[in-house]
């Protein structure tokens, strides 16, 4: 267990008085390593809450720079950060909230060549990406390395959240064996997103990550939480693991990370007619 400084005891006092956390749990948080993929709408609340909670090492993957249109929801960044790499802007904000935290910027796009190396350094991964190729890639890498993954997606007034723990429940490919055809599901850039919806859904991801590290409660394993911000309702849907899943199934056929284009080609190869429309 860490020896807490007086400042740390004060800083984390509201955690430490929770029976489920205590000094032991807070030490676990300080010693833990979490990777956040995407320093955007979801990555912002996740990054802020994990940093404030004292997660000792937080990796951030993002290759973009801060744009004015990000600031309506991406609360890791400020107007003064416009044009700066998001990784660096986010690092300043998070380390500013809590100097106990070391933020490791990964200013790159994840692909089949680098994803296993990046993920390998962390205990838990958070998917806050803004595109399907990265989501499938991160899922596959986490399954292959046995890393717990908090997944969420948002659009307009809606959000989906689930927690993937390889071996204990379904993975993202069990939920959605294939990505939708390109262009069918719009991005937030195309269809919009209420900023606070990103905050609600990302905060759920942060709570799930903290629970996983602490080993408390019931994570959203095998459950997809569907949030409707207009109705202000949550629905919890039980989704089983697919024994035939190509990544986490009983006889996996995808055993190394593949890029989206290859995945699409694979779709064509599996079906009897290879002329898959996309």
């Amino acid at each position, binding site marked *: 267990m860490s020896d807490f400084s007086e400042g740390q005891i004060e800083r984390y006092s509201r955690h430490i008085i929770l029976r489920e956390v205590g000094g032991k749990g807070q030490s676990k948080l300080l010693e833990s390593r979490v990777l956040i993929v*995407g320093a*955007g*709408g*979801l*990555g912002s609340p996740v990054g802020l809450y994990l940093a404030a909670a004292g997660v000792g090492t937080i990796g951030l993957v993002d290759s973009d720079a801060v744009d004015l249109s990000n600031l309506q929801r991406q609360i890791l960044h400020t107007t003064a950060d416009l044009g700066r790499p998001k990784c660096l802007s986010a690092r300043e904000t998070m380390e500013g909230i809590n100097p106990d935290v070391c933020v490791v910027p990964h200013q790159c796009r994840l692909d089949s060549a680098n994803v296993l190396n990046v993920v390998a350094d962390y205990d838990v991964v958070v*998917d*806050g*990406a*803004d*595109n*399907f190729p990265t*989501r499938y890639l991160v899922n596959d890498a986490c399954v292959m390395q046995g890393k717990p993954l908090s997944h*969420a*997606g*948002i*659009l*307009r007034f*809606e*959000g*989906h959240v689930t927690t993937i723990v390889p071996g204990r429940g379904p993975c993202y490919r069990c*939920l*959605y*064996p*294939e*990505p*939708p*055809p390109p262009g*069918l*599901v*719009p*991005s*937030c850039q195309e*269809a919009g*997103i209420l900023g606070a919806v990103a905050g609600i859904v990302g905060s759920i991801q942060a709570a799930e990550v903290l629970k996983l590290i602490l080993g408390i409660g019931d994570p959203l394993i095998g459950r*997809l939480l*569907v949030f*409707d911000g*207009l*109705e202000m309702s949550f*629905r919890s*849907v*039980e*989704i*089983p693991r697919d024994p035939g899943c190509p990544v986490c199934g009983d006889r996996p056929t995808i055993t190394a990370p593949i890029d989206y284009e290859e995945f699409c080609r694979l779709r064509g190869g599996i079906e009897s*007619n290879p002329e*898959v*429309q996309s």
Partner: protein
Amino acid sequence: MSTNGDLVELRLFGPLREVVGEKLVSVPYAGLTVAEALARFADEQGESVRPMLFDSRGNRLRSLILLLNNQTVDELETSRLRSGDVITVLLPLAGG
């Protein structure tokens, strides 16, 4: 002619809700299988909705989660709908 006894509900989310313009649609589909109901819905809604449910060869998209009364459905081709049933259609969300 439909009567209340025929009605089931389709609960729509995401882009499907956008295109249809409703989050809950009542349709006289009791007696159909879930698969038949989805095909009928695509037929009735037309070309803006069909690509969100089926590919160009008429196969149901594998990027859909279909729920019957909030449970995943193993037997899409054989489970017959009863009056008051709710089918939920979920598409993955890319945004983050």
